[in-house]
Structures are given as structure tokens and as C-alpha cells.
């Protein structure tokens, strides 16, 4: 064996070691989250309200808030992202206007989420006077979510064969009808995966929310579903600390006696949710595709 071959062997061995070390770190990370966290997760933990000064509190309200904010943010951002991605993929010509807009979307997607949160704070909390509230949080999350969701949907649309568009136009339909009724349904598997992946990101976001949805989770009356009552879970004007914000909040305050237990439980729930989002994105996308092409 000559020198270069030896060198090659050594280098590859080092690469294997590095990869192995990274695997160890990643495995430790995931293992740590689940092993320390899951024992603290119980039905009671998931459903009961938090306690600030005594041990034994849960994450029920925060979990509800996270889900509610996620749904609202998705409902608001989906039509906007869909419209924008339709324009970009189907109408936009290759000119300065399009490239300016693409740059703007890139800028938005790489903006630190704390900056997005501060903008939401200025605009929704202060200027519009919505205060620390669900609605401020949902609108801020929408801004946070728009660039990635737009890109994901655009990718799904770009994956649809041009033959489909030609088919629609050839029947005398407008481009828009063709897009909405043919291209978008054909892109549905990709669009759904994109939405679910974005959901994971939104679900875990905290920095954009601490000054918009707020850092407190007032008690909710789960018997009252009238959104106009302030203690109704649906009320858009109540402050709403989410799960992710909760983890940050109790750890920075350091008052809660069992904060490590609660945080690790909450972290496990968050990561589990992300894991489910990731897996289901693929699974549901594939199922939808199979359904669309199925024999029955």
C-alpha cells in the first residue's frame, strides 16, 4: 500500500469518526429529550393548567393555545401563500419585478424571528391596539410563516406537468380556472406536505410570540365557546402563552419549583409533535396521491 492510499484510508476513517460523533450528539439530544421528558407526560399534565409557584402544574392551556394559534395562523396564511405562489409560478414573467419580489420573500424568510416578533409587536399590539393577544400572535405567525409556505406551495405547483395546464386551456378555460381547478388539485399531495412541515415550524416558534401573543395564560372557561367572551378559549383578544413560550418563560424566571420536570415534559411534547408533523407530512402526502390515482 502506498502513501496516498494510506492517506486516503486515514482520511476516510476520520470522516467516519466525525460522522459517528455527530450521530452520538444527535442521538443524545433526541434521547435526552424523550428519556427525561416523557416520564413527566401524563394525561393530567397535558390537560391541567400551569401553576406558577407550586409544583404539579400542567401545560393544558399552553397546549391549547399553541394549537389554536397554529390553526389561526394557517387559516390566514394559506390563502395568501396560495395566491402568491400561484402568481409566482403561473403568471410571473422573468423580469425585474419578479426578481425583486423573490428577493423580498427570501429576505422575509431569513429574517430572525425575533425581528418579525418585534414588528408584530409594533404593528398589531401597539398600532392596532390588539394588545398581547391571540390575534396579534396569529398575525405575527402568519408573517413568520408566509415565505416558507409560499415557497413550499410554489414547489408543489412547479411539480405539476405543463400538460395539465395545456389541457385546461385547450378546453377554453381561463388560466385561473385551470390553475384553481386542475393544477392546484394535482399539486395537492405536495401542498399538504408543505403545509404540515410549516405547521411544525410554527408550532415550535417562540421568539415571534413573546411580545405578541404574550407570556401569560389566563384561566379559560372551557364551557364557554363564544369567541366574544374574554375567558372563552376562542376569544381572539385574550393573551395566550404557548407551549414553546412557556418553556422559555419558566426557565428564565426560575420561580416554578418543578420547572425542570415541567420543561422537560413540555419539550418532549413539542418534539413529539414535530416528529408527528414530519412523519405525517410524508405519509399524508403519499396517501392523497394514492387516492387521486387509485383504481377505486
Amino acid at each position, binding site marked *: 500500500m502506498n502513501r496516498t492510499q494510506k492517506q486516503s484510508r486515514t482520511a476516510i476513517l476520520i470522516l467516519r469518526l466525525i460522522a459517528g460523533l455527530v450521530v452520538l450528539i444527535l442521538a443524545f439530544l433526541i434521547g435526552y429529550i424523550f428519556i427525561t421528558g416523557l416520564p413527566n407526560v401524563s394525561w393530567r399534565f397535558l390537560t391541567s393548567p400551569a401553576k406558577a409557584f407550586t409544583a404539579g402544574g400542567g401545560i393544558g392551556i399552553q397546549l391549547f393555545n399553541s394549537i389554536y394559534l397554529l390553526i389561526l395562523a394557517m387559516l390566514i396564511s394559506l390563502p395568501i401563500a396560495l395566491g402568491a405562489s*400561484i402568481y409566482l409560478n403561473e403568471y410571473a414573467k422573468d423580469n425585474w419585478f419578479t426578481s425583486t419580489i423573490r428577493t423580498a*420573500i427570501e429576505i422575509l424568510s431569513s429574517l430572525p424571528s425575533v425581528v418579525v416578533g418585534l414588528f408584530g409587536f409594533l404593528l398589531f399590539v401597539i398600532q392596532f391596539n390588539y394588545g398581547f393577544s391571540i390575534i396579534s400572535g396569529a398575525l405575527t405567525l402568519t408573517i413568520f410563516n408566509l415565505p416558507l409556505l409560499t415557497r413550499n406551495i410554489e414547489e408543489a405547483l412547479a411539480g405539476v406537468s405543463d400538460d395539465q395546464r395545456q389541457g385546461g386551456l385547450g378546453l377554453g378555460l381561463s388560466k*385561473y380556472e385551470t390553475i384553481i381547478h386542475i393544477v392546484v388539485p394535482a399539486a395537492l399531495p405536495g401542498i399538504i406536505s408543505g403545509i404540515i412541515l410549516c405547521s411544525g415550524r410554527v408550532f415550535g416558534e417562540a421568539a415571534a410570540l413573546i411580545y405578541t401573543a404574550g407570556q401569560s395564560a389566563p384561566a379559560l372557561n372551557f364551557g364557554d365557546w363564544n369567541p366574544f367572551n374574554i375567558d372563552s378559549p376562542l376569544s381572539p383578544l385574550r393573551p395566550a402563552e404557548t407551549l414553546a413560550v412557556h418553556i*422559555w418563560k419558566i426557565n428564565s424566571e426560575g420561580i416554578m419549583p418543578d420547572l425542570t420536570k415541567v420543561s422537560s415534559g413540555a419539550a418532549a411534547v413539542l418534539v413529539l409533535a414535530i416528529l408527528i408533523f414530519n412523519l405525517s407530512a410524508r405519509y399524508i402526502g403519499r396517501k392523497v396521491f394514492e387516492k387521486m390515482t387509485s383504481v377505486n
Partner: protein
Amino acid sequence: MQQNQKLAKQLMKKSKTARYERFGHLLSLSALLLIMAIVLGIIIFIATKGLSTFFKDHISLKDFFGGVIWNPGTQTPSGQQAVGALPMIVGSFLVTILAAVVSTPFAIGTAVYMTEISPKRGAKILQPVTELLVGIPSVVYGFIGLSVVVPFVRHTFGGSGFGILSGTFVLFVMILPTIVSMTVDSLKAVPKYYRQASLALGATKWQTIWKVVLRAATPGILTAIVFGMARAFGEALAVQMVIGNAALMPHNLVSPASTLTSVLTAGMGNTVMGSLQNDALWSLALVLLVMSLFFNLLVHFIGRKGAFKK
């Protein structure tokens, strides 16, 4: 001829379909313009707020970027306004650069392993795991930093355990999956025949990786690193949880320090809108924004320089 004119009339009538088309076109355009307006809005709002420290409160750029004492609203012993943002700026750059320096060899090594050495194992285990880790919320990284990294640093180096070192470590783990997955993409984009040609010329596997594959993928890898740095620079909560939040010039890596984001998140709730204390915080936000734009520019620049010639 008469029939002809009737047909002409029918064909010239603007159909319902044509109206749909106009409507749909405008609707999708307005969604796009809304996003554009949001981006402009963010830049204008934060720039206006951030600049008022200098224009309304008449703080000099020198005091802001050069001062080392941060306590807006009070004066330094030497009689200047205590709006020195240098400690935070240094803190942000330190954690970002250190995290990138540590991450890069690990990320490249892992990515090379995944694409060149053991693609099967890479695709089966490492790929899904990195994808999952890219998606893990930063508060979770922060929490683990707080409960594992900070105590570890405390035991090993003494002190409180909070500081640049802990921040770096948390960010290293956090941006690692991002850089790995983007590097993997750019390695995969290197055409197969590059490798085959190199091996056919008698180069060893390592020579092929080092001289051919990595070289061809360099722009993509640089982009990945810049993305990782942008993420590190803008990360707020994970860093804030482990850095100690003392707005002091960092003297060593294990003393409490702060970053732009950590001071921002900690301070924004405790100041009154329009006050100097508040304006100064917005100036920090503006620095963050400008840096984010800078990273964007860098990515564009690298992309333009290194576009793959096929």
C-alpha cells in the same frame, strides 16, 4: 356574410371566462403585493424606530457602536450616554463565528459521510434525523443547554457556566443539522461523472472527495455555512437562556455576556415606548435586521460567483 357577422359578434363578446381570468390574476397578484408590503413595512418600521436613537435622541454613532457601557437613560462615568452596544455586538459575532467554526468541520464531515462514504446508512438514519433536528424548536435547544451544557461548563471551567462558551455550544448543535442538510444537497448536485472521471484517473477516494467533490461543491457549502451563521446570529431565546445576559464586554468565554437578541428579548418588555431606553433597543433590532440583509447579500454573491457550470 350575415352569418359571418353574427359569428364575429359572438366571438368578440367578452366571456365570463375572460372576467374570471382578470379576477384571478389580480387576486393572486394582490397576495404577492401584500407580502411585498409586509417586507417593506418591516424594514421601514424597524429602521424608523431604530434610527430615532440617533436622530431624535441625538446619540452619536460613536457612542452606540463604540461604547462599552449599556444602560440607556443613564450616563457613563465619563459623562457620555450609556448606550454602548459594543458588548452585545461583540457577543453576537463571537457566538456566531465560534459556532460556525466548530460546526463546519463536523457538518462537512457528516455530509461527506452521508453522500460519499455510506450513502445507504446516510439516507436511512442520518437524513431523517437531521431533518427532524432542523425542525426542533429553539427553546428546546435552549432548555437542553440550560440543563446540560451550562452545568457541564460550570463543572469544567468554574464560574456560573453561563457565557459565550455555552452559547456557542448550543448554537453549534442547533445549526449543525441546517449546515449538514444543505451541504448534503450541494454534494448531491455534483455530477456523478466528476467522481468517476477522477477515480478512473487513479485518484484515491479521499483525493476524489477532497480535490474534486468538495471543490465543485464549495459555493453550495459556503452558502450552507452562511445560512447557519445567519440562523445563529438571529437566534434569540436559545442563546438568551444560556449566555447569562450581562451586558458587559466578554472577558473570557465563560463569564456571563449577552448578544443583541438576548438584550432585546429581555429588555423590550421593561421599557416605555418612545423613551431612550426603548429607542436604543430598537437600534439593536435594526442592527439585527441589517445583518440579516447582509447575510442575504452574501448568499446572493456566493450564488452568483459559484453557479454550477453544466
